[in-house]
């Protein structure tokens, strides 16, 4: 039995697949093997946590009636905004056709899909009855509830992302450009609705207000851009598919986005805090006190402000660190800062007790310490996300879409005729290369020597280099470039 995946015919024979995997593992570098083992350990840890977290009512989480949403909600929010941010950041290329953002397209779609799946997995483990949630949302909907709308938008977003990924790997460009547009629109609706889940709660002054949804979207943009920066710096570093345009276009584009978004995010954080300090709303001032000088102060000043905002901005602005390595460090720090930011956000809304609730003295702050099970689930989520993307990067044709190289994208200024016109200039697709039956053979996807072959010296990259764009990178794409 065979299956056709992205112009490759794969044999669905378990024994053949195992042999192919064994062959592939033998060709892997030590670094890649170590990375995969690390991710597998994280996944195994997460699996143990998941098994313990699944049964309804088991008291394995550190949450309590006075602090009901813990680190699993933080992780869910983090992955949910990251998936939206990935789509928003790359929409500059996929929707508006800005050339320098086009190399982000294929990888952003895969990352966004995996991030969303990870977010759904986490929330399923946090809920006591995740299956009932699916049925309940359909059969007993609650249109007044922001959480219901959030589920609707993220559900639709999942469908659009799925179509986007499918169409880009199967060269259904006509469908693809609409999927990009629709998923980008949903990527705005979903995180703002996620913000509204918190914003409508009058009982939680720190969350309550119209400021929360746009702040959530700002952080989404920042998080998605940071993840793209991490991935494209690695693409450049390890000479993965499309690394030339990663250097000349993607990395400068991400640096530009990151600089703008960091400044905006810094202003958002500053005004959020300043506004709270001036206010006399009960609970809000106390929450800000917890952030400034209370139990959240270390996270806020060191991780959120220091590592997540100030140092990244310095790395972006100092000429000596305006290198791919500098951008990589920037993006890693920002990514960490966003996780801390969401953890602070979720905690600050609950840290000021509205009531003593049984057994809890209301002064000064409510307490929450994540359990090992919660930590395992979060680590497992990161492990799953990293492992899934590593496998996609290794086995899927991640070279840039040839349609883009010919200017065939929605809103292209280079090809006024749009996709159809641009595609008509392309030569007909050749027959798929390679043996007729390829059993998960990675060498047909990426030559082993090109995978994880670090380049010793990295020349400083030109910023927004005006030089002509090199021709199509991947030799794996089925369609050659137009002359």
């Amino acid at each position, binding site marked *: 039995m065979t299956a*056709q995946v992205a112009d490759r015919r794969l044999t669905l024979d378990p024994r053949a697949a195992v042999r192919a995997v064994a062959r592939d593992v033998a060709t892997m570098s030590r670094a890649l093997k170590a990375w995969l083992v690390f991710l597998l350990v994280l996944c195994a840890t997460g699996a143990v946590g998941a098994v313990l977290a699944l049964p309804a*009512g088991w008291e394995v989480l550190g949450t309590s009636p006075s602090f*009901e949403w813990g680190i699993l909600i933080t992780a869910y929010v983090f992955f949910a905004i990251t998936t939206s941010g990935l789509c928003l950041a790359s929409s500059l290329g996929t929707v508006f056709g800005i050339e320098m953002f086009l190399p982000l397209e294929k990888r952003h779609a895969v990352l966004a899909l995996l991030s969303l799946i990870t977010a759904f997995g986490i929330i399923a483990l946090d809920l006591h*009855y995740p299956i009932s949630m699916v049925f309940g949302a359909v059969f*007993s909907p609650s249109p007044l509830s922001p*959480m219901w709308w959030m589920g609707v938008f993220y559900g639709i977003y999942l469908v659009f992302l799925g179509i986007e990924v499918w169409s880009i790997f199967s060269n259904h460009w006509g469908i693809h450009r609409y999927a990009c547009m629709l998923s980008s629109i949903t990527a705005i609706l979903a995180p703002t609705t996620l913000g509204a889940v918190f914003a409508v709660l009058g*009982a939680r002054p720190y969350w309550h207000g119209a400021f929360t949804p746009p702040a959530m979207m700002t952080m989404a943009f920042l998080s998605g851009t940071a993840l793209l920066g991490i991935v494209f710096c690695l693409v450049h570093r390890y000479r993965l598919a499309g690394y030339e345009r990663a250097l000349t276009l993607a990395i400068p584009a991400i640096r530009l986005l990151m600089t703008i978004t960091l400044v905006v995010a810094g202003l958002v954080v500053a005004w959020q805090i300043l506004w709270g300090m001036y206010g006399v709303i009960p609970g809000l001032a106390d929450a800000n006190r917890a952030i400034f000088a209370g139990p959240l102060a270390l996270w806020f000043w060191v991780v959120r402000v220091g590592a997540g905002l100030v140092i990244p901005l310095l790395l972006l602005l100092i000429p000596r660190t305006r290198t791919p390595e500098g951008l990589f460090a920037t993006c890693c720090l920002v990514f960490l800062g966003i996780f801390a930011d969401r953890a602070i956000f979720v905690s600050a809304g609950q840290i000021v007790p509205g009531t003593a609730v049984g057994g809890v003295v209301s002064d000064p702050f409510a307490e929450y310490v994540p359990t090992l099970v919660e930590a395992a689930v979060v680590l497992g989520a990161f492990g799953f996300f990293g492992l899934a993307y590593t496998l996609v990067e290794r086995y899927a044709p991640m070279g840039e879409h040839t349609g883009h190289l010919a200017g065939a994208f929605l809103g292209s200024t280079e090809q006024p005729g749009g996709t159809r016109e641009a595609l008509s200039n392309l030569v007909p697709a050749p027959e798929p290369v390679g043996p007729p039956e390829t059993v998960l053979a990675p060498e047909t996807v990426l030559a082993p020597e090109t995978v994880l072959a670090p380049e010793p010296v990295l020349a400083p990259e030109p910023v927004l280099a005006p030089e002509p764009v090199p021709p199509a990178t991947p030799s794996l794409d089925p369609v050659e470039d137009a002359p």
Partner: protein
Amino acid sequence: MSQTGRAGSPGQAASPAALSRRRVLQLGAAALPALCGARLLADALTGSGVETARAADTTAPADAYDPSAHSWAFAIDTTTCIGCGRCVEACKLENHVPEEPEMNRTWVELHVIDQDGTVRVSSPDGGIHGFPTEETMPADDAANVRDAYFVPRTCMQCENPPCTWVCPVSATFRTEDGIVFVDEGRCIGCGYCIVACPYGARYIVPAGETTPKGVAGVVDKCTFCYHRITRGQLPACAEVCPANARIFGDLRDAASPVSVALNENRVRVMKPALGTRPQVWYIGLEEEVI
């Protein structure tokens, strides 16, 4: 010329495993009734369907009961409450509330107001064992205290309850006679209603021998002992109160104790600025603690 990459891939057309659009639509059309059937089957097997749950609900009202003829409310007199904790104990026994101190349908707080207006709130074990003086108000602290009193707490059965409209699956709702319920057959345990409640009146039932409705992982809250009041009895907490601090009744009845208490006293509600319109009024509550 028409090489769109969509239908032009010969490998796709030839592959026996390739899915056509028609096939995908067929699968989708078949999946929908299958999912519906699975839901019904799951409800039948687990008894988690709404009707099944309501049939098994111990809080189901008496047959002759007319919800539209009642409007239940509490008036709580903080000037008479002695903080004995019997109400908490009675509630736990009556409703099979878990023993964990942070999980309560009702609890008692001690509010201590210092000379400078600072309010200290404590509730050791929800007040079920009372309030030992040496722990809750040390003797050397007495000079600094301007006022102190006990405040029994429970669900406010708000007229405009934020917990109901935030629920994504409509599992929590308000009845005609003013009681907010959780349908354990629908609740998914997301905790959204818990963070939305300004009064901390909800909790998620842990797995164990003592569960209010035999279901773990769902939200539980006070129902004013609906199974009792619809049969003409008092809620368990009001029944056992030795100081008559919990005054319960029907607001539709002008002669009921709660109506009389509300007429004869100056009363306050908790957090009136939120617009939730609680149906629990407090007598003798100071401004600092609301």
